[in-house]
């Protein structure tokens, strides 16, 4: 039996691997949008197109009121009520059967719904578990008819969905005649005169079109990308033992070949000897030191690399003393663009209500401010990676990366499995948009973890604390003076092509609490942001030996706590409590020693936001806690989402597909994750946060001053993230995931540097 030949050259192995992954991805993509049969062999495009149509029906008296100058408001009120009745009648079984018959369909394939269009609070129209189960059953049907009674006029808007435009139009056109026929039948049964019947007048033939353009491409791309990533990951993991064996067999000196290469690696001359490459541009301009001599086998251009890099160490490990002169010093004393861009991005995240700012131009996608800035950062990162050189990002895999990848994988699995079902219910677009948002979060994490140096992390932590403090002070100002500085300044600073949402500073919610939202979209978002910034201040307080620093950090803690309390949300107590509990788990004695200072911080907090903390605490008293709608809404969700959860328990109904406009507002990220990404996705989400804490444990245990402080802050922020995930839908508000993954990225830098250090120590010993 002959064995499958294994390519021996590394380049051939890469080609073979890439070709295999590509073929698998293409095959899966083709299979997702085509029906492939083996007996007889054939391939046919799947029916994926969805058409929609609309029609308008006026409800009138036999003696028309439309042009009657003696018609009264009472006449129209009565007629309007009759129209709402007609809408509800249209979706009943007998009428549905008539509609289906007229449209040439089987009634079993037609789902009918009437929507509540009156001025009713959304919460009152949210479906309970029984109604949701009906919704889910109807969503699977290929033909749908939705009736919207006009809230002001005696008229109905009819919207239909079908696989083809003609069928959708026929269905919409069948609705009014079918109802008319039903009314006539009812009248004849009851002996009513035809002249007294309500008149249904369709204003024109239904018009329709394909309403899911691009779905075929989306499904193909989703499946192909998923299979490509999965097969590449499997291939890398499967060949890992072989690579490791080869690496063990090779002497350590060979690792010089794996070190980042100079701008132009050695290349065999094609037509005789080639002249030495020109001196790099950066060196010519005098921006890069040109001290190191050319090394054997390397071109002169390699001298632009610091000597440490040439010796086999990473350029990230060049001496801190040599860096500033070369422009490669640590942030903020650096000319490297990426750290500055990341700093700017974090300033936007902390201080700008970017989720309510968007371009006023009409575009196919919602271009929020972060989605305008982040692509530039990712582009510079990708270019720097491709160009190489001393400032190039360095990709290093940590457990946190795997945790984040697990979340992405779960999201992709859920979407790939449900893509066709989501296409039929027109929810695929929403899911793809949410997937893009998830990709933005992950992109920030990857860029941070690969572009920031270990020696820069403390400076960035201080910077983050500074931003958190500005955010907290602005939130306190909003509480005290009913003036949202973040929204107002954004409105003033941004050019006219951006529209900024309303801050509504000074407004109160349904249960009488102030709406203090800081730079967030909702108050809970501000709480989550501040809770993630709090550990940096507390850890700074724990680690401060000098009195002055201790006072400064103490003031910072008080300001952040006061700002959180100023939102008057119960979470303002729970989220910071989770931070303190996490820190207490790792640093019990140190925290206990700070107890007297804690009293001072509490007093200062009360002075900064008088009355806020009391409002928060009073909401937790037994009677009030159970009676407010914010609690009862959340608890009612548990029962109402059962149909969604149990229909797709393992992999969910599709990432980002649960829409609050047709279903419920889910105020809990963990529950939403369970619905959308299933138990697997929920596990991945918890594992992602768990890997942050797990990765932080070693530096925390080893108590190296700089690393342990960063690890403590990141671990506490991750726990706070998990806690707020149980309190609101945190991933829907981008400030929090950006901040959480920023902290995780900084921790990944620390962890990978620590791993490098251990490996170097292992080699040297």
């Amino acid at each position, binding site marked *: 039996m002959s064995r499958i030949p294994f390519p021996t050259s590394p380049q051939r192995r890469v080609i073979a691997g890439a070709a295999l992954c590509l073929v698998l991805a293409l095959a899966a993509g083709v299979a997702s949008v085509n029906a492939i049969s083996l007996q007889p062999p054939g391939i046919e495009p799947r029916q994926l197109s969805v058409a929609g149509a609309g029609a*308008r029906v006026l409800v009138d008296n036999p003696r028309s009121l439309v*042009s009657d100058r003696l*018609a009264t408001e009472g006449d129209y009120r009565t007629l309007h009520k009759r129209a709402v009745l007609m809408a509800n009648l249209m979706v009943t079984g007998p009428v549905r059967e008539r509609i289906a018959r007229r449209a040439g369909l089987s009634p079993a394939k037609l789902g009918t719904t009437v929507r509540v269009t009156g001025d009713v609070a959304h919460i009152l129209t949210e479906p309970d578990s029984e109604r949701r189960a009906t919704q889910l059953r109807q969503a699977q049907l290929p033909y749908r008819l939705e009736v919207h009674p006009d809230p002001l006029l005696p008229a109905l808007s009819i919207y239909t969905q079908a696989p083809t435009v003609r069928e959708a139009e026929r269905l919409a056109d069948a609705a009014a005649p079918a109802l008319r026929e039903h009314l006539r039948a009812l009248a004849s049964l009851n002996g009513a005169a035809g002249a007294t019947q309500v008149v249904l007048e369709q204003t024109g033939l239904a018009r329709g079109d394909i309403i899911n353009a691009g779905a075929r491409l989306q499904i193909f791309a989703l499946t192909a990308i998923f299979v490509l990533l999965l097969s590449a990951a499997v291939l890398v993991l499967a060949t890992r033992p072989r690579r490791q064996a080869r690496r063990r067999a090779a002497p350590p000196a060979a690792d010089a070949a794996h070190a980042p290469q100079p701008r132009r690696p050695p290349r065999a001359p094609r037509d005789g000897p080639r002249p030495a490459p020109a001196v790099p*541009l950066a060196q010519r301009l005098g921006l890069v030191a040109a001290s190191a001599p050319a090394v054997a086998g390397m071109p002169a251009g390699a001298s632009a690399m610091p000597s440490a890099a040439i010796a086999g160490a990473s350029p990230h490990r060049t001496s801190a003393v040599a860096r500033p002169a070369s*422009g490669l010093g640590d942030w903020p004393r650096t000319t490297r663009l990426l750290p500055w861009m990341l700093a700017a991005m974090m300033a936007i995240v902390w201080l700008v209500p970017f989720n309510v700012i968007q371009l006023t131009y009409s575009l196919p996608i919602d271009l929020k401010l972060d989605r305008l800035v982040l692509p530039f950062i990712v582009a510079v990162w990708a*270019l720097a990676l491709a*160009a*190489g050189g001393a*400032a190039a990002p360095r990709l290093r895999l940590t457990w946190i990366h795997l945790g984040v990848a697990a979340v992405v994988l779960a999201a992709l699995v859920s979407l790939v499995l449900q893509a066709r079902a989501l296409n039929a219910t027109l929810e695929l677009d929403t899911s793809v948009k949410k997937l893009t948002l998830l990709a933005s979060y992950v992109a920030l994490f990857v860029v941070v973890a690969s572009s920031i140096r270990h020696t820069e992390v403390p400076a960035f932590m201080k910077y983050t604390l500074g931003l958190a403090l500005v955010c907290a002070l602005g939130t306190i100002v909003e509480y005290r003076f009913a003036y949202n500085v973040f929204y107002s300044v954004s409105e003033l600073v941004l050019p006219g092509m951006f529209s900024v949402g309303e801050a509504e500073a000074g407004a109160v919610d349904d249960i009488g609490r102030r709406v203090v939202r800081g730079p967030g979209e909702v108050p809970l978002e501000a709480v989550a942001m501040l809770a993630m910034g709090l550990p940096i201040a507390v850890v700074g307080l724990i680690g401060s030996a000098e009195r002055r620093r201790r006072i400064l950090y103490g003031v910072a803690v008080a300001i952040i706590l006061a700002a959180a309390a100023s939102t008057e949300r119960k979470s303002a107590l729970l989220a910071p409590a989770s931070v303190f509990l996490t820190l207490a788990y790792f640093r019990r004695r140190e925290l206990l020693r700070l107890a007297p200072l804690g009293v001072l911080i509490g007093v200062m907090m009360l002075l900064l936001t008088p009355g806020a903390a009391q409002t928060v605490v009073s909401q937790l008293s037994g009677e009030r806690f159970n009676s407010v709608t914010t609690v009862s809404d959340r608890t009612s969700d548990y029962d109402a989402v059962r149909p969604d959860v149990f229909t797709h328990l393992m992999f969910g109904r599709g990432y980002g597909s649960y829409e609050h406009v047709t279903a419920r507002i889910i105020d809990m990220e963990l529950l939403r994750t369970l619905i959308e990404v299933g138990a697997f996705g929920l596990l991945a989400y918890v594992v992602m946060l768990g890997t942050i804490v797990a990765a932080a444990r070693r530096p925390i245990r080893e108590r190296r001053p700089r690393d342990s402080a960063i690890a403590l802050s990141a671990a506490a922020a991750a726990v706070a993230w998990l806690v707020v995930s149980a309190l609101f839908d945190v991933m829907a508000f981008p400030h929090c995931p950006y901040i959480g993954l920023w902290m995780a990225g900084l921790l990944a830098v620390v962890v990978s540097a620590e791993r490098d250090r251990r490996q170097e120590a292992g080699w040297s010993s």
Partner: protein
Amino acid sequence: MELLSVLGVLRRRRVLVALGLVPTLLIWALLSGRLAAGPAPLAVGKTGIAQLRVMVDHPKTTIPRVGAGSVLPTQAALLADLAASDAQRLAIARRASIPAAALGMQRMQLARLFALGQLPERAADASAGVAAPYVVSVSAAAPLPIVTFDVRAPSAREAARLATAARASLEAAVAARAPDADRGLVIKPLGGVRSASVPVTSLPPVVAVAAAVVLFALWCCGVVVLHGLLRAWRRIGARPVAAAAAGDATAG
């Protein structure tokens, strides 16, 4: 600093970068209309628009009478619905002496959503779209008893004629629906027809420049990425050589 590395790569691959100028100039020439082979939307032309507002009223006007005609806004909204019906489309086309197939009616009332959701949003868009040389859009200015006709036609004169025809058709429909001759409503014009000829320009010149710049930037990015891939490729190929050399050195 990263940009210097990128610029260094671009300098080394200057031939490839220079090649990018060809599609860049081509796209600029196409979008700015300097090349005759440009797609159809780039052609500059003119179209006619017209607007006519009418008031739904009693024969003896309700304007000076407090409390009179309180249901007129509702009736105006329903009449706007009826004015966009198929029957009205035929009547308007007949009056304006244009083929009925060339006239499209935009139903603003159907496009108004009362409850959100994927199906109503998309179906409303699908049903609102009109692709015809003559388009009449009818809307009611609730809570006022005013109906507005916005017309688009190949010329301003035709647009004005179409708006007048739409008003006349609505007047006829209102008269036909009146329960009795003395109980009907009347349609009163609010000013005359306002029409104009507006240029249908292609893209503004700045868009052509911006598109060319974006294309060239993307081309340069592609060059840098290609350089990175080639570098990685050579590094993969260099591994066994480096390992063998290191092995020899150790053995020596």
